């Protein structure tokens, strides 16, 4: 459905997008992941024919963005980072305007407008001025605008940015619902979002493609070791450590300070073990046999965030992003 080959956007002083290539098949939801300024928006703008690429080509539904922009535009619904709404217009009136410029024929136009208003849950504010709506509603009006002409491809630039946690959930659900009918590319710098919504991830950093794969493959492929979190009480730190390190398959034991300092002699440990050997039963046995108290033991899978850090090697930016993102339950 989407085919990008060697796509490059060069400005006078820097390269915003550097030879990116990827493909998206019909009906997929693809997450476009990268820190701020990685070139996500620029790539999306080239796909939507907002700006021409400096080099390379992009094809949407079989049409080249440079040779056949009109055909591409007819098949793409685009929601930019700030919803492109006219604050002085009423919701229904705005959607009518969009329907007209997207060339929806008069017969069935009103019906289609009602449909998308129901779909995006904005029917109850149809006669309100958009400027007076909350950010969440405005975002949904923006989504309604993007799907009104029933496009093959939906491109959503940070669809949940700046929403409160409840609105983020609503928007994610809506996007998941839409997935059946459209091929969706959405950009985000919030990692859990990708894990929740997307089937595939395209990771870019500093304009370059870092990885493109399914979420599972990425998590599996990069995880060399099994990681287990432990909470133990009733023993001396060094003794516990020494005992656990003796277990076959355990390669590393690290102490994690509990939040608010060590309380009641409770220790939190992270253990790295060999993937092939399941170290968990052995750990439990060792602790119990030594007479300590085992409070918690669970396996941790490598999160997309860790993958991201490993791939981009850019720790500061991502953690800052994650911290500022509301509702990013990390």
């Amino acid at each position, binding site marked *: 459905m989407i085919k990008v080959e060697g796509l490059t956007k060069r400005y006078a002083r820097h390269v915003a997008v550097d030879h990116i290539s990827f493909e998206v098949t019909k009906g997929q939801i693809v997450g476009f992941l990268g820190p701020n300024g990685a070139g996500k928006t620029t790539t999306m703008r080239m796909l939507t024919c*907002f700006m021409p690429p400096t080099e390379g080509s992009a094809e949407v539904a079989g049409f080249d963005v440079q040779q056949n922009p009109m055909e591409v535009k007819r098949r793409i619904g*685009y929601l930019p980072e700030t919803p492109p709404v006219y604050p002085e217009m009423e919701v229904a009136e705005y959607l009518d305007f969009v329907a007209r410029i*997207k060339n929806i024929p008069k017969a069935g136009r009103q019906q289609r407008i009602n449909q998308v208003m129901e779909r995006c849950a904005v029917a109850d504010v149809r006669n309100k001025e958009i400027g007076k709506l909350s950010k969440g509603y405005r975002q949904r009006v923006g989504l309604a605008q993007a799907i009104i002409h029933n496009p093959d491809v939906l491109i959503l630039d940070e669809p949940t940015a700046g929403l409160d946690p409840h609105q983020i959930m609503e928007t994610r659900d809506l996007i998941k619902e839409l997935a059946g009918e459209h091929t969706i590319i959405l950009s985000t710098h919030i990692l859990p979002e990708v894990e929740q919504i997307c089937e595939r991830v395209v990771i870019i950093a500093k304009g370059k493609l870092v990885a493109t794969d399914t979420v599972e493959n990425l998590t599996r492929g990069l995880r060399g070791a099994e990681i287990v979190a432990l909470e133990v009480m009733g023993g001396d730190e060094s003794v516990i450590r020494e005992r656990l390190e003796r277990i076959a398959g355990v390669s590393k034991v690290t102490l994690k300070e509990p939040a608010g300092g060590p309380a009641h002699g409770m220790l939190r440990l992270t253990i790295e073990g060999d993937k092939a050997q399941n170290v968990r039963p052995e750990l439990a046995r060792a602790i119990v046999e030594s007479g300590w108290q085992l409070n918690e033991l669970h396996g941790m899978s490598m999160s997309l965030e860790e993958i991201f850090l490993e791939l981009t090697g850019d720790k500061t930016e991502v953690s800052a992003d994650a911290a500022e993102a509301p509702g990013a339950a990390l």
Partner: protein
Amino acid sequence: MNIITICKKELNSYFRSPIAYGVMGFFALVTGYFFYAAVVFFVNRSLEAAMQGQSQPMNVDEWVVRNVLSNISVVCLFLIPMMTMRIFAEEKRTGTIELLVTSPLHDFEIIIGKWLGALTLYACLLGLSAVNMLTLYAYGTPDWRPLAVGYLGLLLQGGALLAVGTFISSTTKNQIVAGVAGFCVCLLLWVLDWVSSFEASALNKVISYLSVVSHFESFSKGVIDSKDVIYYISMIVLGLFLTARSMESMRWRA
């Protein structure tokens, strides 16, 4: 038709904001005053002429219509930047330009639609001033043809300045910058005419030819001069063409 859709949307946003009402109110006030002053002046002069025993009656078209139309043409120079300043700058600032550009629309449809919207608002302004003129028919029989030609001239002049204003607005994200720059350009295009009175050198002639106001003169007399029509039309085409180039460059750089 896409152009009509855009044009309607533009008019809609003019009339949803205070711009249209402010401009129309101010315009109605000023033209009403000009009209009143011209009529009073005309009445006084005709009385004087009658007392001095001049047999020829004074011409309403020459004394009232022409003066008022010339004044309107200058007032418009100041109002037009207010009408065009938001035309593209606002869409660029709020990001709605992305909706227009990524919709299956040609650039020229967007530009002409927007320009036509502004021109329609401008025609409404002229319509307001025409109400004054109609009262003349209640008391006399002025010739309608010079009046019609005068309004045609105003429409052409307005169209040309609106095209220039549209271009200026497309170069910036800031409405105020667009407004001030548009105002400066309009002012410049007006005062260029003054040099023609200094001496008749070739340079002065060229400069004076560029002035919008000098081309309105023959229209105000009821004369359609092809030279002036060509001037206005080429200015409209140039303004809209530059807007198209500016939109294109925005896409390359933005």
